[in-house]
């Protein structure tokens, strides 16, 4: 698993198949280079760049109310910074905010809860405490989880997080 690969093109393909065209993003070192920069060049996507991650939670909710699917891209630090918006807007507001979260510093092949990095280690317990469904995406074998996770989030109008465990290539 440590030598396995996660391909950016696999993630992008699944996101498009899930009907997502709006990407709301604040750059994250794990996903910026191969994922976000590619999306910024892709005419199929409309990328909305935000100054702070909690804005993105609300923009995605406004887009949902307007009949669109969207994906919020951020680093785990941004997720931690957005906990109150996640609480009030996404969870209590029952908005299908789909998040793609880069776990910067997570060791390849190591489960997030087993990471030596404190911030990474606490992400899944926090999401569990908030009742937010999450999926660990570490290699391209995990990318088939993406579409069902997005469909379920929109079907049940509940938030969901895809935790990106290594830098996509």
């Amino acid at each position: 698993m440590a030598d396995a690969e996660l391909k950016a093109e696999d993630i992008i393909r699944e996101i498009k198949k899930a009907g997502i065209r709006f990407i709301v993003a604040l750059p994250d070192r794990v996903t910026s280079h191969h994922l976000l920069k590619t999306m910024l060049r892709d005419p199929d996507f409309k990328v909305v760049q935000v100054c702070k991650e909690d804005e993105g939670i609300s923009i995605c909710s406004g887009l949902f109310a307007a009949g669109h699917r969207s994906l919020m891209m951020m680093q785990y630090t941004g997720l931690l910074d957005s906990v109150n918006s996640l609480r009030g807007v996404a969870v209590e507001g029952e908005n299908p905010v789909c998040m793609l979260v880069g776990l910067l510093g997570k060791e390849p092949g190591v489960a997030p809860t087993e990471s030596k990095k404190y911030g990474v280690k606490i992400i899944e317990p926090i999401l569990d405490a908030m009742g937010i469904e999450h999926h660990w995406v570490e290699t391209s074998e995990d990318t088939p989880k993406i579409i069902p996770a997005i469909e379920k989030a929109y079907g049940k109008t509940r938030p969901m997080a895809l935790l990106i465990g290594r830098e996509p290539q």
Partner: protein
Amino acid sequence: MMKRDDMLKALARHRKDEIVVAVYMAAQELTHISPKDLNYTFTGAMGQGSSHALGLALGRPDKRVVVLDGDGSLLMNLGSLVTIANAAPKNYIHCLCENGTYETNGAVPIPRAGQIRFVDMARAAGYPKTHEISSLEDWDRQLPTILKEEGPVFVDLKVEPGELYPEDFRRLYSIEYRDKFRRALQNS
């Protein structure tokens, strides 16, 4: 300075099929003064109204979106001015109800109350059009033009509390009303 409920009554008179996103006191009063299905009050956390409105404006470029933000709320999400100016939705009208206090939370003054030039901030962030309006007469006269202006437009409205209206936070954040809003917008 104008009474906030008078300001809202003027908006109600000029309003046609615009989406109106409102927060806190303006939201409470809007539901009484201009009760429409295209009112969006489901913002969920302080400071987030302008960001919800951006999603709505980008998702429905054919609809005008009026935001009734608060000064305390805007200070909590100041970066949203840059985000909105950068996204540059032409259908976005950002009205700031500047009352100088956190009125819902005990009417404690905001930092530097009355000394912040919000229109300068909006202009510096990149809003192409800004207005600063203190009197009800000016608001009433300029509203028809403002509602048609190419956005993003920023309007600083100097307001104070007027008549008291019953508060209903459950109504503001109701999922049922949010879904009603979605259906109304879909059919609009």
